[in-house]
């Protein structure tokens, strides 16, 4: 038996991230609390370095390595870049919050970096095992992060919930994968596709087993994406976790979850499209309905965002369900737009909060226009983007999804989705109403000069800038498929 040295070039970004994360873990031990900003700087340097490496190594060809269990292709290049940029913004938004609450510890960044590594591996997975390893690496970091504020009973409770439900979901996914392995005899995703075609053409027993495996895979993915009826963990975790962690969970991991859905369902189980289309259809319809309707009743903005996330997941699932290339590209566009917008939304909560004041009730946005016209405007853009009102980028995301759904002649579903969006518009408008039409209850000045102001402004301008020129990002997502 010969040992082949694998091609390391496609994994350079991941190796860099891994090395740096380990180095920071060690270095942080020797950094006194007063100089914790060094850890922060190193973490940001790592993310940006990984981003640059990803961009430099990007190429329109798919590159396989580690016996085809890892792939770097245009989709992974695009999604990884987005994950890294969004995570860098998340770290930036989080620092002032952590500092003011004595939570500014190196572990936050180290766990975050390992989580990002998990996401990158998920995105690039080309074998069921790699995919699962990436997913678990991410999940374990997230469980720990949710419980990061260990003195808070609410956070501990939600970490526990997250852990139990997340483990069940991982178990489901793993069980589905093991069935797939049993049927096809391979872990390689391309091999699974061939095996599935062969098995489906074979005996009836095999097709039953395949659908059985498929059901478990879909349930697992549904949990990770947060699609109804597997959404129960989402509002509690969003609500209970410290806001920076909610931001972290809410933004980038959705991109990674989308990526594994693409790898598993579209690439791996593509031949079974007829079977999973119906399952995803149900998930999409329920997510849209439950997410939008229940969000109206929320008074806590983090919970409101949680339900709004569920509604957005409904749209993403709709794009996947359509089963056409345009639909996948649309879903990818949507998930990227969602990550940018939701990072901005949670960033606003972090901007308004200070020690002893979480600013997580919707009413805390009262009279923001009087306190800071600019940030009220930024939040206005974010809200209209989430509602899907042009000229913000959220509109084009919805447009692309609806278009692919109409293309596969599910006009009724498109009508249902837009009706739900109208319901959704109501709770986004309510935030705007508090900001612009009410007098402020809290008149404390907003923090100045923490860098968060600048990035948040860029984030808001991105929402309108991509809305006026959506062509470039759309071309990228289309090319990535």
């Amino acid at each position, binding site marked *: 038996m010969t040992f082949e040295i694998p091609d390391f070039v496609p994994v350079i970004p991941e190796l860099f991230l891994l090395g740096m994360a380990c180095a920071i873990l060690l270095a942080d031990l020797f950094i006194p609390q007063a100089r914790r900003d060094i850890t922060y700087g190193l973490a940001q340097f790592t993310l940006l370095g990984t981003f640059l490496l990803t961009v430099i190594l990007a190429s329109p060809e798919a590159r396989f390595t580690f016996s085809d269990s890892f792939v770097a292709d245009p989709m992974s290049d695009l999604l990884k870049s987005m994950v890294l940029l969004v995570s860098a913004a998340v770290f930036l938004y989080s620092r002032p919050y952590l500092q003011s609450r004595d939570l500014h510890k190196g572990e936050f960044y180290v766990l975050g970096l390992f989580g990002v590594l998990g996401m990158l591996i998920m995105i690039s997975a080309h074998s069921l095992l790699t995919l699962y390893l990436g997913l678990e690496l991410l999940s374990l970091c997230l469980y720990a992060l949710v419980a990061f504020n260990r003195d808070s009973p609410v956070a501990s409770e939600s970490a526990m919930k997250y852990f139990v439900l997340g483990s069940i979901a991982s178990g489901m996914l793993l069980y589905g994968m093991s069935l797939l392995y049993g049927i096809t005899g391979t872990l390689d995703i391309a091999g699974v596709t061939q095996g599935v075609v062969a098995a489906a053409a074979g005996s009836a027993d095999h097709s039953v087993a395949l659908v059985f495996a498929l059901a478990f895979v879909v349930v697992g993915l549904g949990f990770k994406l947060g699609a109804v009826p597997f959404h129960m963990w989402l509002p509690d975790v969003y609500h209970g976790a410290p806001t920076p962690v909610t931001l972290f969970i809410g933004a980038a991991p959705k991109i990674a979850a989308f990526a594994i859905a693409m790898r598993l369902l579209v690439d791996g189980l593509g031949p079974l499209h007829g079977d999973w289309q119906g399952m995803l259809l149900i998930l999409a319809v329920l997510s849209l309905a439950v997410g939008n309707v229940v969000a109206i009743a929320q008074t806590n903005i983090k919970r409101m965002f949680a339900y709004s996330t569920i509604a957005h997941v409904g749209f993403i699932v709709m794009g996947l369900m359509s089963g056409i290339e345009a639909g996948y590209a649309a879903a990818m566009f949507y998930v990227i737009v969602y990550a940018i917008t939701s990072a901005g939304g949670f960033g606003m909560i972090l901007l308004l909060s200070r020690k002893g004041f979480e600013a997580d009730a919707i009413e805390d946005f009262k009279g923001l226009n009087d306190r800071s016209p600019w940030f009220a405007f930024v939040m206005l853009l974010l809200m209209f983007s989430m509602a899907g*009102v042009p000229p913000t980028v959220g*509109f084009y995301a919805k447009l692309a999804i*609806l*278009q692919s759904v109409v*293309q596969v002649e599910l006009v009724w579903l498109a009508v249902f989705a837009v009706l739900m969006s109208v319901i959704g518009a109501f709770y986004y408008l309510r935030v*705007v109403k508090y900001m612009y039409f009410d007098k402020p209850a809290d008149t404390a000045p907003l923090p100045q000069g923490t860098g968060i102001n600048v990035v948040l402004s860029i984030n808001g301008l991105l929402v309108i800038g991509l809305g006026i020129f959506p062509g470039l990002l*759309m071309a990228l997502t289309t090319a990535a498929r």
Partner: protein
Amino acid sequence: MFADWPLLSLVIWTPIIGGLIVLFVGDRMPEASRRLSLSIAVLTFLLSLPLFVLFDRSTHEMQFVEWVPWISTFDIHYHLGVDGISMPLILLTTFTTMLVVLAAWEVIQYRVSQYMASFLILAGLMNGVFSAMDAVLFYVFFEAMLIPMFLVIGIWGGPNRIYATLKFFLYTFFGSVFLLIALIYLYTQAGSFAILDFHHTPLGMTAQTLIFLAMLLAFAVKIPMFPVHTWLPDAHVEAPTGGSVILAAIMLKIGGYGFLRFSLPITPDAAMALDWLMITLSLIAVVYVGLVALMQKDMKKLIAYSSIAHMGFVTLGFFLAFMIYNNTGNWQGAGLGISGGMVQMVSHGLISAAMFLSVGVLYDRMHSRQIADYGGVANTMPWFAAFFVLFAMANTGLPGTSGFVGEFMVILAAFRADFWIALLAATTLILAAAYTLWLVKRVVYGEVANDHVAQLQDLNRREFWILGVLAFAVLLLGVWPAPLLDVLDATVENLVRHIAVSKL
């Protein structure tokens, strides 16, 4: 010298970018933002004049066309162009915006720059709606328009403004999402988002009917038609004067424009099959809403209902064409109702703006819109009374004012179609006279009602000029409508020729 300028882009982006600049000037320098806003509004108006002067009246083709790829993935283009039905509406927009900025001069003291910026951006977006030749571009402008209006009503509105503005937003949003689905469906059929391609896409009867109904929802809410009109009185009552003016003068017209640009040419067979529905709803608007207007105690509400009734006349005119054809057997003359509706839209834009501005003048002095609080205003405000009576007369359709031309043409068209429709339509002459003149009698004439009225000051110079310019426009269009009709002719004729051909 203007012929090779991108005039349409200029009338869209000058006010939008200008509005953003005003926004950044901020509220610290209210006087500077007022002056800047007025200059931008005047500049936009001046830029829109060459559209009228250089307009080629002999063709129905799109003019001043601009075409740049925008979102290449979906074959969406930044495609602008105007024809006879959109050009007058752009002029109306730039003209009204100028007056609205001027009318807010001393009246708006809270967050001046945000107020002015909202109206400037709104003007640019509305110009975009009228000149977009790409369906997605149209939809983007069509929806984006809601945002500034939502804020205008919500921030500067009356006591019940939040209810009114949410109702306004959700009603219109609800209507327009169906339009979006229809446009996407048309894209899958036509292979592009160009509106002119939609015009020539063959469609089956079921598809046409569904598309027609989807578009009807969007445009009927905008116009608004009975029974989806209930947001309008609320929005008008709560909106600040400027908001009411733009709402009545321009935003309602976008619904009417939508029928001419989308519904009729894209789904002619469905429009023919469902013209009874449109005519019935229009007549209900004319008669029933006219009666409702009679009973109003609030001046703005009365004018709001009167707007619905007048817009009913517009939709009536648009959808008479098929009935005229069935009755007379040829398409000659079927365009009369459409031209009449267009004239009525422009005229109502001027008159409703004037009426709301007049009520605004009174409201600024008395802070009341209740008719009962007034009486004998003519004694203390003779100039105002003169203008108000003129506009009221125009609202009732008195010959010599612009209100007469459109109504006369539509009623004439109605006679060609069916006597009973004409009879019902003509009741508007009585009803409009009843509610408007009764309003004038109670507010302007009679004894001075109370001390507040006795202390009223007559128009200041600014108000005089605003109302004076409008009065001039109303009379000019009334005695000499030819320039407007010339512009419309070729386009309307082509539209009638187009809808005469079945797309099945």
